[in-house]
């Protein structure tokens, strides 16, 4: 029988469609993997009984119309799932069971997939290592002492360890691409508005975007096709025709112009990252693409801008967790204000509190103009930089992260050094444009490194194609020895 641990999502879909394997067999396989992978702590909630029932129901009807017919999928625990606990990695939502299904997960289910479980993540997606989760940190299958990145760390870990055939995450400042880079997987942050935000626990509304996390580029195209689409319940959703990303996927990148931004050569960048970047440039060159040096002059302001805009929005988005209507409520406090204080004091972790404080501060009267307004202006300049560049190039190539996966506990006491991890990923969120990270090599210790392709808004097909071509040339396939089992 086929080794499902070595099969891509597309291959499993084909196995099911060609009736070589049943949905139930696939589901049982992944359940077994999840049970053996408990040490990774990548799941917050599993729903095996429900998954098995869904698989059985699929097998009894065998409707192969969907893109994801009969596929069990685990998703980041930031997507609200009907009747299944949704925690956002926080104590404050520890026992929250939504009565509704997020649009993006609903889209997956409409394509024939069903839920396998909910994946660990940084609390309210605030973090770059999965260490801020109330449910404990997730371990990177690449190495016992390594973080999987974050905030979609549980998703990346489960995917890399074959605990789910594919998954979805959310990316506010790099939360899909950085963990993808740390785990040797593919992660795409789509154009802002391509995937509906309805039913996703909000972190920073103007930056949040759901996207696929997969083993390879083909799967990425497939998942993006399944999850994206206009949603009238999200006022920021883009009203456009659905694309056939998988069907249109090809490796013809001959003649495409690829920009190399000089500002991404940051200080103290490890040599191996620079080498990886060079390797990427070489591959593209050999594939017939034209390499062009470009400048994105406001890049250095992206990170500080992000750490004003995102906390500002978060401080407001998280105000609803007050113990009044749903979620955790502290038993302490003699009046409303005291109840608020103890509920939020006990319900939120340190990183969330830190960002709520920063956000509240930058929106306060007297500081608003100096911080929030200034940040919005810089955000516009960053977007203008990209707009300018995309007049001359089709895509931009950069490293995904300034380092490979770091050690658990290494940066927990140094938030700034943690934030610096997002330096290459944040600009795409600020500009609302798509970016993909694909595995491109390894560091001296054999830890995966990712490379990032960025395009103008709604050009997902283009970066998927370039990534597809590069993936083939790189020819790297990660093989882990399943040490955690």
């Amino acid at each position, binding site marked *: 029988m086929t080794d499902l641990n070595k099969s891509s999502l597309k291959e499993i879909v084909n196995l099911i469609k060609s009736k070589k394997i049943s949905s139930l067999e696939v589901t049982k396989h992944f359940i077994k993997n999840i049970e053996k992978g408990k040490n990774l702590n990548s799941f917050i909630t599993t729903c095996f009984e429900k998954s098995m029932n869904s698989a059985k129901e699929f097998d009894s009807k065998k409707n192969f119309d969907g893109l994801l017919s009969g596929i069990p999928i685990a998703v980041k625990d930031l997507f*609200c799932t009907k009747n299944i606990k*949704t925690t*956002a990695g926080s104590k404050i*939502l520890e026992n*929250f069971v*939504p*009565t*509704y299904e*997020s649009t993006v997960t609903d889209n997956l289910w409409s394509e024939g997939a069903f839920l396998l479980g909910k994946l660990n993540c940084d609390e309210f997606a605030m973090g770059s290592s999965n260490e801020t989760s109330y449910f404990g940190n997730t371990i990177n299958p690449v190495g016992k002492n390594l973080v999987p990145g974050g905030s979609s760390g549980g998703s990346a870990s489960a995917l890399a360890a074959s605990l789910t055939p594919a998954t979805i995450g959310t990316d506010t400042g790099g939360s899909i691409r950085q963990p993808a880079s740390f785990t040797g997987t593919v992660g795409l942050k789509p154009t802002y508005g391509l995937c509906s*935000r*309805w*039913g*996703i*626990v*909000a972190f*920073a*509304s*103007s930056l949040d975007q759901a996207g696929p996390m997969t083993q390879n580029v083909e799967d990425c195209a497939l998942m993006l096709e399944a999850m994206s689409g206009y949603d*009238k*319940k*999200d*006022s*920021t959703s883009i009203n456009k025709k659905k694309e056939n990303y998988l069907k249109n996927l090809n490796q013809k990148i001959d003649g495409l112009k690829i920009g190399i931004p000089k500002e991404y050569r940051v200080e103290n960048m490890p040599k191996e990252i620079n080498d990886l970047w060079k390797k990427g440039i070489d591959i593209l060159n050999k594939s017939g693409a034209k390499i062009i040096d470009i400048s994105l002059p406001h890049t250095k302001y992206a990170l500080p801008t992000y750490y004003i805009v995102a906390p*500002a*929005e978060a*401080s*407001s988005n*998280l*105000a*609803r967790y*007050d113990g*009044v*209507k*749903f979620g955790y409520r502290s038993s302490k406090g003699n009046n*409303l*204000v005291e109840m*608020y204080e103890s509920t939020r004091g006990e319900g939120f972790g340190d990183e969330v509190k830190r960002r709520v404080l920063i956000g*509240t501060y930058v*929106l*306060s*009267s007297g500081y*608003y103009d100096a911080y*929030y307004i200034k940040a919005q202006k810089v955000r516009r300049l960053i977007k203008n930089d990209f707009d300018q560049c995309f007049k001359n190039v089709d895509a931009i190539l950069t490293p995904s992260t300034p380092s490979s996966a770091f050690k658990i506990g290494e940066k927990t006491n140094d938030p700034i050094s943690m934030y610096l991890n997002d330096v290459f990923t944040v600009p795409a969120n600020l500009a609302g444009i798509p970016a993909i990270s694909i595995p491109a090599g390894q560091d001296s210790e054999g830890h995966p490194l990712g490379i990032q392709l960025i395009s103008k808004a709604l050009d997902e097909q283009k970066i998927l194609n370039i990534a597809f071509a590069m993936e083939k040339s790189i020819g790297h396939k990660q093989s882990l020895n399943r040490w955690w089992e």
Partner: protein
Amino acid sequence: MEKEKFDYFIKTESNIWEVVIGLEVHAQVISESKLFSGSSTKFGSKPNTQVSLVDSAFPGMLPVINQYCIEQAVKTGLGLNAKINLLSIFDRKNYFYADLPAGYQISQYKSPIVGEGAVTLDMPYGSKKIGIERLHLEQDAGKSIHDLSPDNTFVDLNRAGVALMEIVSKPDLRSPSEVNSYVKKLRTIMRYLGTCDGNMQEGSLRADVNVSVKKKGEKKFGTRCEIKNVNSIKFMEMAIDSEAKRQVELLETGKTIIQETRLFDTKKNETRSMRSKEEAHDYRYFPDPDLLPLELKQSFIDNIKNKLPELPDQKKERFIKNYKLTPYESNVLVSEFETSKYFEEVIKKADINLAKNWIIVELFAVLNKKNLDIKESPVSPQNLASLINAISSGEISGKIAKKVFEIMVETGDEPTKIIKEKGLKQQSDPKELEKIIIKVLEANSDKVLQYNSGKEKLYGFFVGEIMKASSGSANPKLVNDILKVKLKK
């Protein structure tokens, strides 16, 4: 009428103080559903039965603007002769309260949907223009109920998310009576437009009142205090009067006014401090990232403009011009849309002069006494028209008409039926009248002799006797004519 008679100043031994008032009126938009959700807005439903996941701010829920509410706001803006902004922005106003589920209210801060406009007040001393600063859309909060239990507060979210228009005036108002007139005018305009029912009992219309005082003739405004959430016109007038006096007293004793938010205690007729400027909330306004800026097309606005109904000011002019009403009469008749409609129904079939007097004097008296809305009037426009026609044709006298009207009020019957059944028809047949007159004169031949020898004041006596003999139905004019002739003989 001269202005001085109506001036509102606070006079002390040493000074004359002028009061400066600006209003922020919160008007609930007439709309089936809420501003950003599909929940119903029906008043008086069971608590928490009209609450969607969006209204209660569940994780991942997003607001979607209700286009109808936008139309209503634009319509109101046009009714206030205001500039409609093609681009406006929804902001979040952040504060914690149990009946504010998201921890923020979606409102419009720096870029409202409607800009500057004006309304005209008809004051006894002439018309006065009051500037409108802006109109913006915002969500209402829910309701906290503190008096149902000694230990708990209950929250009803039925109202949470209902669309409100906040209409901010310029500080152009100078007296409680101008405020009275301004609020009524706003209400009239919105009722004409069908954008707010103006029902103050149900909280559809409430106001925050900004009051400051300055010495008469002084250009610079004094420090203002804001009196929050006053929900009747009478209370607004009382609150202004009491607040202005408080401020004058402070200033005259050498103290200063602290800018603050105050509440009006209706029982004690005084305002008291709610929170000072230092304690004021920092609402941390910022554009709501869940909503794109609202862009309107000029054609969208023009479309609404073309369908705008006749507004009270236009109707008033038309009534004056077409029906030869005095400005006062016209004002009274247009102040409520339903009244103007009633009036125009009546005059379709009846005399204008009689109609306006009957409505303004007789009908209003009855409605006031019975505390009824004109829509609930026991006398229908058709019935009032036939009553007036009965007067015009001489079928009944004005005096009898009042009697018939009283019966109409009680029974709702048609006047013709009442006249017939009660035999109230005026006797206008000269021959019949002559018979009655001859009879009366014969029965009082001694008085006739006295009259003819010069006691002319007996004339009234004869008329009285004739009316009595006809049980009041004799046509007075004809009686007069015939009696004069008979007595000369």
